[in-house]
């Protein structure tokens, strides 16, 4: 016996569906438009400021003229500094979780701690960095204090990607290596780590992208309002792009002269983030294809 469905009921339902879907579509495109507006606004206004001098000169005339070289270099130092700390520690921590820690409670505990660390607002990292690295360990306002603070921020990202990368390696690789008489450390070093590396690197690059844009953690640990010279040691303060943008956007003597510099700085920041994202995506795709072709 065929079930009769009232055609007008179906029509009504289809109508609702159509209405809802159209609504979703419009909202999605609206947000996409907003995003393009934000990006476009900064890119269009920023790109006209960018020239060789802007990228290679220090700010002059009370930061109303000149370039942003010290800020670019400072951000670069901070990215490297944070990676030097977060990369080895994060990778080792991720390996421990996958290969050594007793499954169950221990892994869950570490994962919870890592998630908690990832959820802490960046300004709290700044407070901690100031109390611990700057005051307690007496590094002062310095690149090393800033790098360590940012490294803590990047740590959860590196740990997570390492953990996931190792988790996806089939057990047969471990067993094969161990069966050949390799120790656990050798297995990890020679078999697992090379396989996991592309994804770990992807995670590292993403964390660098995040680090390059953080302001709150370096406000009190490292960032300098203005430095005419480039930093000479890791115990010097340095300028940084995000802090520089904050400073010239919110304070200063000559707002009109500073605005173009602010657009230029925002542009450079966005370009760094874009490059990091593209790089991470491409590395991932490259190695995925390579693994597939094997």
């Amino acid at each position: 016996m065929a079930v009769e469905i009232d055609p007008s009921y179906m029509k009504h339902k289809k109508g609702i569906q159509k209405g809802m879907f159209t609504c979703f579509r419009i909202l999605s495109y609206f947000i996409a438009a907003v995003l393009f507006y934000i990006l476009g606004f900064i890119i269009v206004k920023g790109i006209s400021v960018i020239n060789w001098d802007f990228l290679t000169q220090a700010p002059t005339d009370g930061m109303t003229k000149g370039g942003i070289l010290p800020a670019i270099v400072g951000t670069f130092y901070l990215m490297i500094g944070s990676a030097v700390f977060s990369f080895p520690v994060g990778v080792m921590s991720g390996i421990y979780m996958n290969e050594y820690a007793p499954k169950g409670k221990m892994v869950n505990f570490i994962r919870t701690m890592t998630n908690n660390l990832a959820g802490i607002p960046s300004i709290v990292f700044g407070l901690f960095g100031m109390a611990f690295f700057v005051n307690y360990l007496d590094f002062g306002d310095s690149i090393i204090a800033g790098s360590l603070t940012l490294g803590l921020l990047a740590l959860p990202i590196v740990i997570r990607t390492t953990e996931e990368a190792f988790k996806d390696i089939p057990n047969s690789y471990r067993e094969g290596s161990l069966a050949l008489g390799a120790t656990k450390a050798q297995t990890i070093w020679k078999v697992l780590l090379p396989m996991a590396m592309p994804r770990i690197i992807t995670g590292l690059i993403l964390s660098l992208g995040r680090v390059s844009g953080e302001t709150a953690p370096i406000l009190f640990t490292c960032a300098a309002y203005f430095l005419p010279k480039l930093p000479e040691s890791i115990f010097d303060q340095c300028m940084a792009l995000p802090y520089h943008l904050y400073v010239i956007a919110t304070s200063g003597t000559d707002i009109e002269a500073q605005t173009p510099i602010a657009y230029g700085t925002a542009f450079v920041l966005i370009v760094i983030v874009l490059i990091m994202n593209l790089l991470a995506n491409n590395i991932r795709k490259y190695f995925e294809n390579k693994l597939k072709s094997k």
Partner: protein
Amino acid sequence: MKRLIDNIARYVLTVSGFTTSVVILLIIGFLFKEAVGLFNNPIVEDGYVLALNKENDVKRLSAQQIKNIFDEEITNWKEVGGKDMPITVFRLEDLDKHYTEAELGAEYEYAGDKIAEQVHQTPGIVAYVPDVLMKGQKDIHYIENQDIPVKDVLLGNEWFPTATPSPIFGILPLISGTLWVSFFAILIALPFGLAISIYLAEVANEKTRKFLKPIIELLNGIPSVVYGFFGLAVIVPFLQQTFNLPVGESGLAGSLVLAIMALPTIITVGEDAMRSCPRSMREASLALGATQWQTIYKVVIPFSISGITSGIVLGIGRAIGETMAVLMVTGNAAVMPHSILEPLRTIPATIAAELGEAPAGGAHYQSLFLLGVILFFITLIINSCVEIVSSRNKFKK
């Protein structure tokens, strides 16, 4: 030899495995150490006393009363439980009005005596002076200097950390500022976030998805100062014109910026949750004659509700902890907000704005660490909520 290396590796890896736990402990330890110190500070700034005439029987004043007295909002001792006489406020600078430099001595060596003289002469006086000057002065009555009470901080609704003689650290305006901004941000972001995650997960074709998804992920990577700068350059002037405000920097500007910033989190997590709904469930629903939309809201959404909720909660967490963007666009007025269109100030923005000026180790500095502790716990609670919600999801599968 190999075994030795193996053991060393195990040892090193174990140690680094607990780095995050150690870091969290250190954060808690250091934040708490500074924050708790706040409650060991006297109400009146360290090294100073409030001297009264010996006839005056007022013994205790709260920080709020002291501030009002020195702001000349309270002008009679009757209002703070004393006798009916007008209050005469006396600060160290006022000495110069009454005495010549010669009388005070070249190095203020007679200042103590002169202050005492003033205090004896004026029945209604309250003198805010360094305690070293008052050593050995007789017949002077001092306001008892109690420690800053916990209640006044947690329930106080005024934030004047730099007021003299007694700073006021009521954190309610900051907490309510944070909640207002985050609440409106989520209110704005929620409909968009849900609509877009449903659209991406269920409705959009592969091509549209491949186009929209990377953009939304990219949005997540843009630094918060850039959002703040965009807010300052575009949203703030826009709001000022639209609502005809005296200043465009307002809670609403912060909410709008935060809404844009919280969107990627809500969308990504929500979409992932909906995609994890098994194909068989969808097909069963469609086979029973349900339309696609009925399937979505009767099957897919109930199935993935815990994932969607964690996305929203994570978005709230991001909004509450966000510092720079909010600092740049909300106008930073540390008062109880009456409307979302007024300038207000959030906890993270307060820390960022004031820590640079607060002398290390002082009460102001410690109060900012207290704010950090509060923020830390708010995010800890939010994280636990997310874990509980998502663990329920696993159980359901």
